[in-house]
């Protein structure tokens, strides 16, 4: 069968706000190929160089690890000491071992080139990023608040529409959003949990933590978080123990608990499955990983069929019903009868089963309206509106070009802004003012004037940096953090997240298909070592 190579939106996030940095051109770092002989040679010539010898601090960026030149932040000292004790060769070997274990276990993603697809190991940097418990608790509270507000917002816009009626959020903006699903109006969603799984991208600047975007459709990356933890824990067993790192291992059980709580047949043992677009999807490894973690069936559209408004899977012993579907397919593809008719990945009639209340979907269809780039700017207002609380985590300042003041400001400051098309994702239709030529800016300004409602703009962000092992020594690279929020009867966040790294020097692109890599993120107790 023909499988459409899906680009799940969440897989192609580009950190949009790029700050120019001199000498920002560097090749992609291939972690596996290091020149060992060079390392050996330099060790013979001089006393072992510090791993931080070439580490550059830059006053414009918050550094996660160093307070000042040669001065680690207190909570990093133990880790740095441990690494400094190792020879350069040992550190390099450790890095290679981590990469190799990913390759053998098949922790890969698929990249589609012009001619053939290749499986690539997601580059994982062996130096963990450390976050203090108090920093984490701030993020955690902020995300829980945010996901609760977003769920209330979704229930409202597909229900009575209070927030649209009183103009707090413009009705035209919401209902004109390409990811608004009128089919969802009036549909009863179990527990009101529209978004059960959320992956929000958190960035840190000198001003603190901010939410860059929410991924409310099919957020991915959690398997890399878990696999990184596995590999890095093995690499630094001693340090890991001393830091009392908070565990992420229970993510699978937590997710399963949420999925079970959504089952339409409470009191009975629910039958739960994860639907994947298939092995050709770039996140297939993650789908298989999660299904195994939870002990649920991994299915494709071909394994399922609808009969008398119930969903079934085909087994060797005939048909078996499905009560809950954790779907890793975009709305467009889940049901050719309800949504895109050319989809061959989903199941005909599935939406009818859902509407009849015979099936739970996580996440619900139509959640994309709440992670729209323009709707994003209203999230702080949603928090005040539904929860009567002040937002704990800030948004990145966003100018809506649909509003005259926003458009005027954007046009005036184009050089210092990042402009994004609201309907697009993955960095398409984007202008980075500081990097564009005068001509490019003028062309873009014309587009802005022609269709202002299509665009938003944000100031350039100075993302924090953390040390990464590059060619056997540590260099500073920009990072973000994607924690995973689960929402069922309660809302919770597994302590940690996928720390994404822009491996190319100077780059702020953390996307794995564009030279991005990942790090393990450790949440550690204040007084740990």
């Amino acid at each position, binding site marked *: 069968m023909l499988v459409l190579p899906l680009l799940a939106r969440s897989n192609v996030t580009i950190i949009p706000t790029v700050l120019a940095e001199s000498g920002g051109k560097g090749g992609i770092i291939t972690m596996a190929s290091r020149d060992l002989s060079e390392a050996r040679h330099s060790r013979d010539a001089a006393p072992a160089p510090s791993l931080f010898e070439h580490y550059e601090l830059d006053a414009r960026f918050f550094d996660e690890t160093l307070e000042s030149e040669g001065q680690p932040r207190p909570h990093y000292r133990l880790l740095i000491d441990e690494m400094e004790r190792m020879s350069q060769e040992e550190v390099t070997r450790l890095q290679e071992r981590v990469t190799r274990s990913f390759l*053998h276990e098949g922790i890969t993603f698929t990249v589609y080139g012009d001619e053939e697809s290749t499986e690539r190991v997601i580059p994982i940097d062996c130096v963990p990023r450390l976050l203090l418990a108090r920093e984490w608790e701030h993020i955690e509270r902020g995300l829980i608040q945010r996901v609760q507000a977003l769920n209330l917002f979704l229930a409202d816009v597909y229900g009575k529409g209070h927030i649209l009626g009183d103009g707090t959020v413009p009705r035209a903006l919401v209902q004109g959003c390409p990811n608004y699903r009128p089919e969802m109006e009036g549909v009863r969603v179990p527990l009101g949990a529209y978004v059960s799984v959320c992956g929000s991208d958190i960035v840190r600047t000198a001003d603190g933590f901010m939410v860059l975007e929410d991924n409310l459709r099919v957020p991915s990356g959690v398997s890399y978080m878990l696999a990184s933890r596995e590999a890095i824990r093995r690499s630094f067993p001693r340090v890991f123990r001393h830091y009392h790192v908070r565990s992420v291992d229970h993510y699978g059980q937590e997710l399963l608990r949420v999925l079970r709580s959504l089952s339409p047949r409470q009191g009975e043992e629910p039958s739960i499955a994860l639907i994947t677009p298939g092995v050709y999807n770039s996140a297939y490894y993650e789908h298989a990983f999660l299904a195994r973690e939870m002990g649920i069936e991994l299915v494709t559209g071909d394994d399922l069929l609808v009969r008398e408004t119930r969903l079934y899977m085909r087994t060797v012993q005939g048909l078996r019903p499905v009560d809950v579907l954790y779907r890793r397919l975009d709305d467009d593809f889940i049901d050719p009868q309800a949504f895109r008719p050319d989809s061959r990945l989903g199941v005909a009639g599935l939406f009818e089963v859902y509407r009849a209340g015979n099936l739970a979907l996580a996440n619900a269809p139509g959640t994309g309206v709440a992670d729209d780039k323009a709707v994003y700017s209203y999230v702080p207002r949603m928090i005040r509106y539904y929860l009567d609380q002040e937002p704990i985590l800030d948004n990145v300042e966003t100018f809506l070009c649909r509003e005259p003041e926003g458009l005027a400001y954007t046009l005036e400051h184009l050089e210092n802004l990042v402009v994004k098309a609201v309907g697009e994702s993955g960095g398409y239709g984007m202008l980075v003012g500081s990097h564009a030529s005068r001509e490019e800016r003028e062309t873009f300004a014309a587009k802005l004037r022609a269709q202002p409602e299509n665009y938003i703009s944000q100031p350039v962000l100075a993302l924090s940096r953390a040390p990464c092992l590059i060619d056997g020594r540590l260099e500073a690279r920009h990072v973000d953090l994607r924690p995973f929020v689960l929402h069922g009867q309660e809302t919770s966040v597994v302590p940690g997240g996928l720390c994404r790294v822009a491996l190319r020097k100077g780059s702020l692109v953390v996307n794995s298909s564009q030279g991005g890599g990942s790090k393990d993120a450790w949440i550690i107790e204040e007084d740990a070592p």
Partner: protein
Amino acid sequence: MILARVADSFYWMNRYLERVEHTARLLGLQLERLPSSPVQEIANGWRRLFGSLDTHPPGADIYGGPEDEDDFFFADGYTLTDYLTFDTTNPTSIVFCLTAARENARQVRDAISNGIWSSLNRPYLQLRDTDLVDIWPKEPVMLYRGIVEAVQLFDGVCASSMRRDAGWHFMRIGRFIERAQLVSSLLEAHCTNVKDTAEEDGDWAGLLRVCNAFEAYCQLHGAQVGREKALGFLVYDAELSSSLRFAVNQIRSSLEAIDPPVRGRPPVEPYEIVGRLDSAFSQHRVNLTVGGGGWYDLADLVILCRNFHEALERTYIYPTEAQAAS
């Protein structure tokens, strides 16, 4: 309870791996002989090899098929080896089959453990990064020994870690139906291509070696190897893991585990075919000499294996809507 698609992947994963092991064994033996054996024997070896894989050497369509007597006299061992090992466009090559096995494993990555996956992925990655150019001048035989061992390691990891559920049994069925089919066509190819005359000894020892049965044979019958005993051993011996009878017994017990027979209900189609094969083997009713009075020729066995495959898919993998609903 197992998804039909998952059962199919388990089944195919093991069919392909059986083929990988079989081809590696045949090639290993053939390469061992290349430096020292007479041209006739080498040509016979290639003919048997291609015959048992039911395929033709590259270019056979242009220069004449393997039925062409002289075909393999001029064959270049390097080219044929490369074709059967590394040619990704040849559906019988080791790389092709190993890739297909891994692809099937990837389809059911959620249903197999990391250990099982790694034991398959590691040899795949190694073979992918190997070229015949590099190993040909050294000890190419070692490559094939390594491949056979890799498949055995995979078997061992599965056997020691898997629950004996339906997935396991579909794996076993895949493994043994492929074995039955390959051994049947190997025996047929051997009997067709190797002349058992006064000048030539019929290479029955070689045949037993390819089937990993030489030592077992010697323990049982001594080192005197003759046609009737060798063929009889490979077809009828119930204790020999590479014999046809053994394969059929394994398939039958796996089918019984998946779908326990119920008194008064007609057996499912695959079970019925296996039953026929089993009676032929237990009653020694296969024609091991030309014009014998048995029920089946060796060629018939190959066809029965294909019929079994089709019946299995009809019954469990792609049942009709009505069957599925019942």
